[in-house]
């Protein structure tokens, strides 16, 4: 479903990642095990991000920037700083949104849409998406990156989400870029930079006042 478009993970500045040609991965079992290993060893991530929303019909790109934090098991914070200030925090079963100075709180379990968003966000962040039955996954690579193409299996999700592309560096140390492709051919791309893996994150980062 469309809510999947909000999932926005991490990576390295990835200009040109999508343009270069990819071939099928021969040893997918090895790659899966590397990704599984990465997700087991990653307890926290902090990173800058650039989000580009491409509205295909309008030939329009909307670029926003911000900072991202993830802490196992279920803590996320997306903080947009340009061109608007907006933060969304997932703290276990709570979702907090801060728009300028207004804070709103939601209970994840009382809202199916938020629960779906959270499940996909977290599964992409911690690599569990590979073991999820929500997507059919095809594996590609070139000399610099691995690319995973995830196609939704569920009918409801297919109505608004065509595909998610996840890009990993060749060391499989983290996701470097995500593309979320909608059925209407709009694309949301997230590139990550200045990553800190397993650095300490203050608990206050997963609170909003």
């Amino acid at each position: 479903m469309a809510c999947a478009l909000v999932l926005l993970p991490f990576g390295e500045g990835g200009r040109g990642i999508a343009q270069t040609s990819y071939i099928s991965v021969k040893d997918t079992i090895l790659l899966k095990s590397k990704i599984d290993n990465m997700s087991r060893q990653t307890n926290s991530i902090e990173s800058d991000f650039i989000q580009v929303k491409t509205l295909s019909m309008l030939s329009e790109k909307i670029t926003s920037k911000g900072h991202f934090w993830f802490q196992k098991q279920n803590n996320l914070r997306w903080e947009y700083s340009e061109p608007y200030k907006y933060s969304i925090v997932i703290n276990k079963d709570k979702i907090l949104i801060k728009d300028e100075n207004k804070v709103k709180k939601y209970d994840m379990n009382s809202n199916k849409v938020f629960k779906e968003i959270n499940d996909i966000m977290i599964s992409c962040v911690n690599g569990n998406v590979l073991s999820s039955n929500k997507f059919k996954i095809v594996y590609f690579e070139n000399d610099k990156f691995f690319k995973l193409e995830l196609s939704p299996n569920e009918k409801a999700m297919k109505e608004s989400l065509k595909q998610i592309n996840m890009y990993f560096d060749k060391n499989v140390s983290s996701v470097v870029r995500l593309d979320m492709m909608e059925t209407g051919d709009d694309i949301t791309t997230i590139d990550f930079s200045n990553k800190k893996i397993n650095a300490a994150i203050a608990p206050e980062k997963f609170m909003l006042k």
Partner: protein
Amino acid sequence: MQRLLLKNLCLSSLFITLIVSCSPTQHYTVKRTQIVTESDIHSIIDKNKSLLYKAKIKLYNRYYSGLIVLKQTSPGTSHLVFLTELGMKMFDFEIRNNQFKLIYVFEPLNKPNVLKLLENDMKLILLQNLLNKDAKVFEFEDQSKLIYQTSSGKFKNYYFINTITKTVDRAIVKGSLFIKEKVDYIYNDSLNANQIKLKHKGFIRLKIELNNISTKL
């Protein structure tokens, strides 16, 4: 009895005075009628570049926010797209030859009342009740401002224009007695509105505030 009549007369006079003094065209003189075209006013949608607004919507006690993109895609055709800050598209309206057409709506928001309210407000903001309509023209004493008055069913629309820049400063929708909606357009150093504030009066407690963030990134 006489005292009661006098009291009623005073109240009636006060009421009439209030209504007259609340008239949007007070201090203006009616000059003519004309069809208002794009050459008479500066459009809210820029013909040469897209505009990005941060939207804040307060409906009763609920608060929503998002982004609005306004873009002319070809002569006579524009789009108004509403997105969440995270990039999820909520609405896409096409405006072709002054007609609104819903191109896309995020299914959970596909509710006739929501769509109708949003469409009507966006039409008002984007001057769709003015362009190519027959308008009564009122001029201010020093000719620095004028008002275009058009009709939409039982309501009258008043658009306050700065005659030098041709920009719209305010739009008002008024019934026979009271104002129903008001939009204020605030400009800084551009002919494109820096801030647009819409407020419903009466039963619908709805406020929309759009802040231009086109050039901030």
